[in-house]
């Protein structure tokens, strides 16, 4: 147990699991609506709409918990990017991912209780949680109300513009999910990080 760190308390694990499930449901139902076809429906359109709406609302609730928790607890500090020396830190981490990792070099920013995320993780998690997530909600919520609000504010093309932006941000979040899952294989063993988010204990120092 000496090389194990208790990084993910129960609440974070439940929150993360719920977040992952909701985002997967939203991606599948969103794709099903966008590429709906009477002959080959992935999910029946009306079901996909309901799934997307309900999962979206729960995700907003889950996101609000994240914001509140990060405001009142110390967890928020992991998302605070120190701009000083950021380029050097990002370069070092990038070099590790593209070169050092193949040479079994030690990670330049090993996981500690004080620093859960390496600089690249910190930047991408920050962009995802504080830029993309608010954008997906800002474009999704008006559509939940049939675009009425946006239509009145901007005009008849508003629903179309809102949905296009929603689709683009949704696609970027899907990419994040894929890359995030792949990067999770960079643990002590390829499955170590997946085990960590279930048990709460982080193995190794990647």
């Amino acid at each position: 147990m000496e090389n194990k760190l208790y990084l993910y308390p129960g609440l974070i694990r439940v929150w993360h699991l719920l977040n992952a499930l909701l985002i997967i449901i939203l991606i599948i139902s969103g794709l099903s609506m966008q590429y709906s076809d009477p002959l080959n429906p992935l999910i029946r359109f009306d079901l996909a709409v309901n799934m997307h709406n309900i999962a979206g609302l729960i995700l907003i609730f889950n996101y609000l918990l994240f914001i509140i928790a990060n405001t009142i607890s110390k967890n928020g500090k992991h998302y605070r990017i120190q701009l000083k020396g950021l380029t050097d830190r990002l370069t070092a981490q990038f070099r590790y991912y593209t070169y050092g990792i193949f040479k079994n070099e030690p990670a330049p920013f090993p996981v500690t209780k004080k620093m859960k995320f390496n600089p690249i993780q910190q930047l991408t998690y920050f962009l995802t949680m504080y830029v993309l997530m608010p954008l997906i909600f800002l474009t999704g919520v008006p559509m939940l109300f049939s675009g009425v609000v946006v239509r009145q504010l901007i005009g008849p093309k508003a629903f179309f513009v809102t949905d296009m932006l929603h689709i683009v941000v949704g696609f970027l979040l899907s990419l994040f999910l894929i890359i995030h899952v792949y990067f999770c294989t960079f643990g002590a063993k390829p499955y170590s990080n997946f085990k960590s988010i279930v048990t709460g204990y982080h193995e190794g120092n990647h």
Partner: protein
Amino acid sequence: MYKAIKRIGGFLLVILIPGIVALHAEEKGALSRTDNQRANDHCLNCHAHNYFIYDNTVANKQVKHKMEQGMKIDTTLFYLSNHKNFKCTDCHSEDFSIWPHAAEVRMEPKMTCIDCHGGDEQYAKFQFEKIEAEFNLSTHATKHADVFTCWTCHEPHTYKISARSDSVINKIIAYDNNICLSCHNNINKFELISDNEKPNIISKHDWLPNQARHFQNVRCIECHAHVKDSLLVAHNIQPKEKAVKLCQECHSKNSILMNSLYQYQLKSKATGLGFDNEVILNSTYVIGANRNIYLNWISIAIFLMVLTGISIHTILRIFLRKKDHGK
């Protein structure tokens, strides 16, 4: 002084000339009533009002009598309608000129669209024969053949063509849906035709997501009529069991809306932005029907690049690490 007089004169000319022109135009407009309109005054003296006055020769007194609403003509709507140039007696018997109208005249069968428009080259583009054939297949015709005619939906004194003449799609939708609602949301008219209890339109469509938005953006016939590509407006209204209930029929690349509501919309020049069914975007946006080809390709390309990157990285991790361990 001379300059001042000149200025005042100029000012008066500017003010007066348009006024004189406008007055003249108004006078000309008043005088430009057609012979038919003047002939119609004879009927509209009574039929344009809520009441009419006649001499009761038996009681020897003048009687003011209520005009039945169904017999009253809204002259404003009539003179804006498709039949605005008609004389009343073009469609109704000349004998109606005599009052009191004889009983046998009032029992005369009414003319139908085909009586005037059938087999006429001038009206061929309106496809009246095809419309009649489709209507005869409809649930309106098969269930209520004895009472349901063209006029049940297209009131001849007010009907105005919308799908061909209106470029604003929302106006077409509102106009056409009002035709359906004039019976299906009006118990008095509904009971004239059907013995069934009038259904509640809202609760019957509870299953429809975003109901209000659908009602505003599509016509009832989009789902309730059998679409025929060669016909502008579908007239084969289906029984409710056969109504379109599959969302993907509209919300897909091959949206049926393109063969119905948007069929005769001017196909505006493609913007080059790569949207499917682009004409829909002029008035609304339909998820699943308005995909963007460029966004599709860009997203597929980025997705494949990410997968390729991950695959190469995985392979390098496996082989280079093994090699490194071997050293």
